[in-house]
């Protein structure tokens, strides 16, 4: 996996976000076993404590779970997976609106543009 971190944002939250994206897109599938914290940290080029903290937060959100002896896995809970997709979706929509409002489009115009784009793609 290619990890790219933006400047000036906590790496901890960027790991969480990237993992959410990977889970939502299916790059990580429900029930997949995660590599060890250290391997994941080495792969991402980040501090192991930071990776550990991010995984603990993902666990708190119910996206990964730990089995005492065998390691960490991606959740199989449908509800939690749906929730991630929804949260990410809302974020992208918010970004879209923010960007288009910045260049002076009204909300109606944005929705119209979205529909036009959809028709065009068809």
């Amino acid at each position, binding site marked *: 996996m290619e990890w790219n971190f933006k400047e*000036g944002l906590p*790496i901890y939250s960027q790991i969480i976000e990237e993992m959410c994206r990977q889970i939502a897109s299916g790059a990580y599938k429900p029930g997949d076993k995660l590599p060890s914290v*250290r*391997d994941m940290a*080495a792969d*991402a*080029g980040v501090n192991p404590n*930071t990776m550990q903290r991010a995984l603990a937060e993902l666990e708190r959100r119910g996206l990964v779970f730990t089995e005492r002896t065998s390691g960490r896995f991606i959740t199989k809970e449908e509800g939690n997976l749906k929730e991630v997709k929804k949260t990410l979706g809302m974020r992208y929509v918010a970004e879209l609106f923010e960007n288009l409002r910045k260049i002076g489009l009204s909300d109606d115009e944005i929705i119209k543009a979205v529909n036009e784009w959809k028709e065009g793609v068809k």
Partner: protein
Amino acid sequence: MSMIECNGLTKYYGRVRALNNVNLKIEKGQIVGLLGPNGSGKTTMIKLANGLLKPNGGEILIDGSKPGVKTKSVVAYLPDREFLPDYMSVEAIFKMYEDFFADFRRQKAEDMLSSLNIDPAMTLKKMSKGTKDKIQLILTMSREAKVYFLDEPIAGVDPAARDYILKTIISNYSEDAVVIISTHLIADVESILDDVVFIKDGEIVLHENADQIREEKGKSINGLFREVFRC
């Protein structure tokens, strides 16, 4: 007890003050960046920690002891220059490390070496700078030390070698150890650091968690560094 503790640590070279009243505590389980421009006192501090220099005032303690034979058995030190005789082969150096350090894990070193496709019979003289740097790092990280001092481990190597070096550091230090990385190449190392220590004209000007800095200031460590050390 802190793994590294400096109390009023002061060092002069003649009349030139290199370190001034440094107070610092570093706990185990961390990778810490000792960051400052050239001449700020980074190497002086590391040399004091390794007993290569004596302080003019104050003290530095490693795992509770002043630098000496005892601390040297638990400190792995990567100097900022080539420190091995270049007529020696990698094999011979591994043997020497085995003799010198009880905590040297030869198997680990050999595993790392084979992943790099370096012939153990090759002498250092015949190697490129990047390869020599990797060998020195392998030797340092193959010890099961409590404290690792890495002085400018990525200076002057290409991006692929840099990634290799950083990965080697991440995969090989133990959670009971401390890794101190001194560098002015902040952007290259900042993602692997827990805490950062800024050192300026021999004084500590900042000691904070890296992610906290990004969170609170909305800046990269590199960005903050440029601001603090603007000429």
